[in-house]
C-alpha cells in the first residue's frame, strides 16, 4: 500500500514536470526559432512478485511513471533544406535590393537619363544642320553636349557610389558572420558540457539553430554534428567553426594585400598572413579585383579571406555558391564593374561606349571649320590621354575654347555660315553603327577595334541594349527571388508545423496533465484512507 503512495508521488512529479514543459511552450509561443518541447512519459522499472500461491506467477508489477526525456521537436532535414533555400533567397534578395537602388536612380523608362540626353544631343546637332549660323543654336549644341557629359557622369557616379555602398555592406556582413561564428563556438562549448552531463540542452540547441539560420542568410553553410553535441560549420568546404574554434573571415582592402614576388601576404598589426600559394590567378581576387593596386573605379574594395592559422585563403566564387555575400560580391564586381556577359560590367561598358563615341565625334569635328573658316584641331570632348578607355567618363570635359565662344564650333566642312553639313553627319550618328566610317573620314582615320557588345550598334542603340539586358537580368533575378522565397516560406511553414507551438494543443495538454495530477492526488487520498482504516482497526 505504501508503494502505491510512491507510485502516486512519481505520477504527481511527472504530471507537474509535463505541466512545466507545457507552460514553457506557451511562454515561447512567439519566440522566433523556438522548438516545441514535449515531456516523454515512460513507466518506471517494474518489479517481479514472489508467488505464495504455488506455481502461479502473476508477473511484474508496475512502479509508476517518470519523465524519461524532454524532447525537442525539430526536423533536421527540413532545417537543412530551409537553410539552403534561405541562402539562395538571400543571394537573390541582396542583388534585388541593389538592383532596386540602381534602377530607381537610372530609370531610363522615364523621360530623363542618358537616353534623353543622347536624344537631345543629336537633336541639337540636327538643329545645327538647319541653322548653323545661328549663335543660339550653337549655344544649344554646346549646352546639350555638356548635358550629355553630365548624364554619362551621373550614371557613372550612381554606379560608383552604389558600389561603395555594397562594399560597406560587405564589410559589415563579414563582421556579423564572425560574431555569429563566435556565438556558435561558445554555444558549442555549453552544449557539449550539458551533453556530457547527460542533459538535453534544448534551448541552447534552439539558439544555435537560430544562429545557423542567420548565418545561412550570409553564406552557404554545411553543418557537421560531432558526438559531443558540438557542430562544425563549413563554408564551401572551408572550415569556419571547428567545434570551439572560429577561423575568422577577413574583409581586406585589395590594395593592402601585397605581392611579394608572386606570393601574396597581408599584415595586420604584428601578424603577417600568407596567402596559400596557387590560389590567386592573374593577380586578381575572384577573377576581377586586382590585388596590391588601386581599384579602377573605387580606389579600394574589400576582398574576402578565411584564416587558417597564419595563412589566409581567398573566400571567392569557388566557395561562395549562394548567400548575401555572394550576391554582394557579384553585384559589386561583376554586375556593376567588370563583368563581360550581357547585363554585366556596366561601368566598363558605359565607359567604353563613351570612349568610342566621343573619339568618333572628335575625329569628325576635326574635318570641319568654324564659322570664320578656320580649321578645328582641338578635341571637342577632351580627356587626358593617359586615362584608360574603361574609365574616361570622370575625365571628360568640353573644349573650353568652344564653350566660351561657340562660333568656334565646326558645324560645316567649308566653314561657310550656312554650312551645317558636319552637324548633319554628326546628327546622323544617332543611327549609325559606331564602326561605320562617316563620310568625312576614311577607314584609316576611323578603324576602331570595338568590343563585342558595341559592334553593329549606334551609341543610343548600345545604351538601350545595355538597359534591356540589364533589366532582363533584374527581372530574371526577381523571378528567381520570388520563386526561392515561395519555397522558403513553404519550408518555414513546414518547420512551424513541426516545431511550432499550437496554443489549443497546449491548452488540451494543460487539461490532460491537470487531470493526471488530480487523479494521482486522488490515489494519495484513497491510500491515506485505507491506511487510516488499517491503523485505527485495533482501536475499535
Amino acid at each position, binding site marked *: 500500500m505504501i508503494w502505491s503512495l510512491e507510485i502516486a508521488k512519481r505520477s504527481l512529479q511527472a504530471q507537474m514536470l509535463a505541466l512545466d514543459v507545457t507552460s514553457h511552450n506557451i511562454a515561447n*509561443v*512567439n519566440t522566433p526559432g523556438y522548438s*516545441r518541447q514535449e515531456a516523454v512519459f515512460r513507466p518506471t522499472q517494474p518489479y517481479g512478485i514472489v508467488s505464495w500461491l504455488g506455481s502461479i506467477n502473476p508477473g511484474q508489477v508496475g512502479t509508476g511513471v517518470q519523465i524519461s526525456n524532454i524532447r525537442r521537436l525539430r526536423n533536421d532535414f527540413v532545417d537543412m533544406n530551409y537553410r539552403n533555400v534561405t541562402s539562395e533567397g538571400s543571394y537573390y534578395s541582396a542583388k534585388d535590393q541593389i*538592383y532596386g537602388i540602381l*534602377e530607381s536612380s537610372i*530609370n*531610363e*523608362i522615364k*523621360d530623363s537619363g542618358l*537616353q534623353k540626353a543622347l*536624344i537631345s544631343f543629336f*537633336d541639337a546637332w*540636327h538643329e545645327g*544642320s*538647319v*541653322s*548653323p*549660323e*545661328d549663335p543660339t543654336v550653337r549655344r544649344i549644341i554646346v549646352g546639350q553636349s555638356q548635358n550629355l557629359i553630365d548624364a554619362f557622369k551621373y550614371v557613372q557616379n550612381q554606379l560608383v557610389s552604389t558600389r561603395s555602398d555594397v562594399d560597406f555592406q560587405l564589410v559589415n556582413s563579414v563582421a556579423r558572420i564572425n560574431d555569429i561564428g563566435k556565438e556558435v563556438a561558445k554555444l558549442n562549448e555549453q552544449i557539449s558540457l550539458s551533453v556530457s552531463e547527460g542533459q538535453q540542452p534544448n534551448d541552447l540547441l534552439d539558439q544555435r539553430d537560430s544562429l545557423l539560420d542567420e548565418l545561412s542568410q550570409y553564406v552557404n553553410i554545411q553543418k557537421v554534428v560531432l558526438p559531443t553535441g558540438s557542430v562544425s560549420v563549413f563554408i564551401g568546404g572551408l572550415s569556419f567553426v571547428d567545434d570551439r574554434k572560429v577561423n575568422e573571415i577577413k574583409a581586406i582592402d585589395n590594395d593592402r594585400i601585397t605581392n611579394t614576388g608572386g606570393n601574396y601576404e597581408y599584415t595586420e598589426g604584428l601578424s603577417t598572413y600568407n596567402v596559400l600559394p596557387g590560389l590567386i590567378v592573374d593577380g586578381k581576387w575572384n577573377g576581377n579585383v586586382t590585388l596590391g593596386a588601386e581599384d579602377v573605379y573605387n580606389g579600394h574594395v574589400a576582398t574576402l579571406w578565411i584564416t587558417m592559422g597564419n595563412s589566409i585563403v581567398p573566400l571567392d566564387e569557388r566557395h561562395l555558391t549562394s548567400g548575401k555575400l555572394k550576391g554582394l560580391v557579384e553585384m559589386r564586381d561583376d554586375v556593376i564593374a567588370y563583368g563581360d556577359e550581357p547585363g554585366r560590367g556596366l561601368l566598363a561598358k558605359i565607359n567604353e561606349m563613351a570612349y568610342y563615341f566621343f573619339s568618333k565625334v572628335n575625329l569628325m569635328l576635326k574635318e570641319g571649320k568654324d*564659322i*570664320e573658316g578656320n580649321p578645328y584641331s582641338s578635341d571637342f570632348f577632351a580627356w587626358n590621354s593617359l586615362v584608360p578607355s574603361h574609365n574616361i567618363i570622370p575625365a571628360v570635359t568640353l573644349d573650353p575654347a568652344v564653350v566660351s565662344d561657340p562660333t568656334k564650333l565646326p558645324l*560645316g*566642312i*567649308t566653314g*561657310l*555660315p*550656312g*554650312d*551645317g*553639313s558636319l552637324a*548633319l553627319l554628326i*546628327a*546622323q550618328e544617332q*543611327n549609325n553603327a559606331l564602326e561605320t566610317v562617316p*563620310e568625312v573620314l576614311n577607314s584609316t582615320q576611323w578603324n576602331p577595334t570595338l568590343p563585342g557588345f558595341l559592334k553593329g550598334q549606334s551609341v*543610343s542603340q548600345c545604351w*538601350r541594349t545595355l*538597359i*534591356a539586358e*540589364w*533589366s*532582363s537580368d*533584374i*527581372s530574371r533575378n*526577381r523571378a528567381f527571388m520570388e520563386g526561392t522565397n515561395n519555397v522558403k*516560406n513553404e519550408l*518555414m*511553414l*513546414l518547420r*512551424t*508545423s513541426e516545431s*511550432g*507551438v*499550437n*496554443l*489549443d*494543443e497546449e*491548452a*488540451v495538454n494543460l*487539461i490532460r496533465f491537470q487531470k493526471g495530477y488530480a487523479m494521482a492526488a486522488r490515489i494519495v487520498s484513497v491510500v491515506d484512507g485505507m491506511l487510516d482504516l488499517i491503523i485505527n482497526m485495533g482501536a475499535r
Partner: protein
Amino acid sequence: MRITTAYQYERSVQTLQTVLGRLTQLQDQLSTLKQIQRPSDAPLDSALVMNWKAYSTQVERWQNNIKEVENRYSYTEQNLTHIKDLMLNVRDLVIRGGGSDALGPEEKIAVSRQLVQQADEMLSSLNAKYAGRFVLANAQVTKPEDPAWKPFKVLVQDSGGNFTFVDTISQAEDMVQEDSGSKWMVVFEPKTFDEMNDPSRRSVSVEIGSNSIIPQVLAVEDYFKFSGVVNVDGINYHRVDMFDKLYNFSETLRSGGSLAAADSSGRTALDYTDEILDGLTDAIASIGARVQRLNSLDDFYKSVSTNVEALRSSYEDADLARTYVEYTKFHTSYQSLLRVIASITPMSLVDYL
C-alpha cells in the same frame, strides 16, 4: 499537416504581403498612368518603348525640318511669283516700248526708267530674306561679319573697265547716263559646298528622313541663267542674264531705239521677255511641286507619328479601366483577407474552458 499558432500567423502575414504588394503595384500604375514603372517590370516592352521614343523624337525632328523647308520654299515661291509679276509689267513696257513708233525720245526714256524701277524691285525680291537668311543664295545664306552683304549685287563698269558696286539699279542707271561708255549689270556671288562629294549637298541641306536630305535653300543656278563671269578683286561674280536683258532694253530705249527690232539672232525683246517669263513659271512650278511633295511627306510622318505613339502607349501606358478593375479586385480580396484573419486569430480553446 499540423497547424500551429505560429503557422496561422505566418501564413496570414505572407498572404497579406502578397496582396499588399500587388495592391501597391496597381496603385502606382493608377497614379502614374503607366503600366511599366521601371524597365525590369517588362524588359522587352521597355526596350521597345525606348526605341519608339527615340524614333518618335526623330520623326518629330523630320517633321520640324519639313515645316521649316516648306515655309522657306513657299516664301521663295512667293518671291519668284512677285518677280514674275514684275516681269509681266516689263512685258507690258516692252510692248509699249516696241509696239509703237509714235513714242518720242522723252517717252522712251520714261519707259526706260520704268523698266529700271521694275528691275530694282526684282533685285530687292532676289535679295529677300527669310528668318535671317537669303532665300536665293546657295551656301552663303548670310554673312554675320558684314550685315550689308547681299548675294545679288549691282555692278557698274565704267568706260575705263573699272568696276564699282552700287546699292540700287537706279543709282547705277544714273552713273551710266553720266558716263556713256559705262554699263550696269547684276551679279551673283555664288558659294557652293564643292568639298562635299555628294552633289545633293551643294547647298544648305537638312534631313527629312532616314538618310534622306533636301536642300534648304534652292540653288540659284537651277532657276536663273548666268551670262558670264566677272572677276572683281579676285572674286568671281556671275552675271545674271535676266538683268543683262533688262539693261539692254533700257539702253535701247534710252538711245532712242525700238524694242520691236530683232537682234542679230533674229529675236526681239518680247521673245526674250517671254523666255524669262517661261523660266520663272517653270521655277515656280518646280518649287510648287517640291512643296507638294513635302506636304505629302509631312502627312506620311503624321500618320507614322500617330502609329508609333499608339504602339508606345499600348505597351507603356496603363489600361485605366482594366487596372482599376484589377485594383478593385485586389482591394476586395484584401478586405476579405483581413476579415478572415481577424476572425480566425482570436479563436482559442481557452475561451471555451
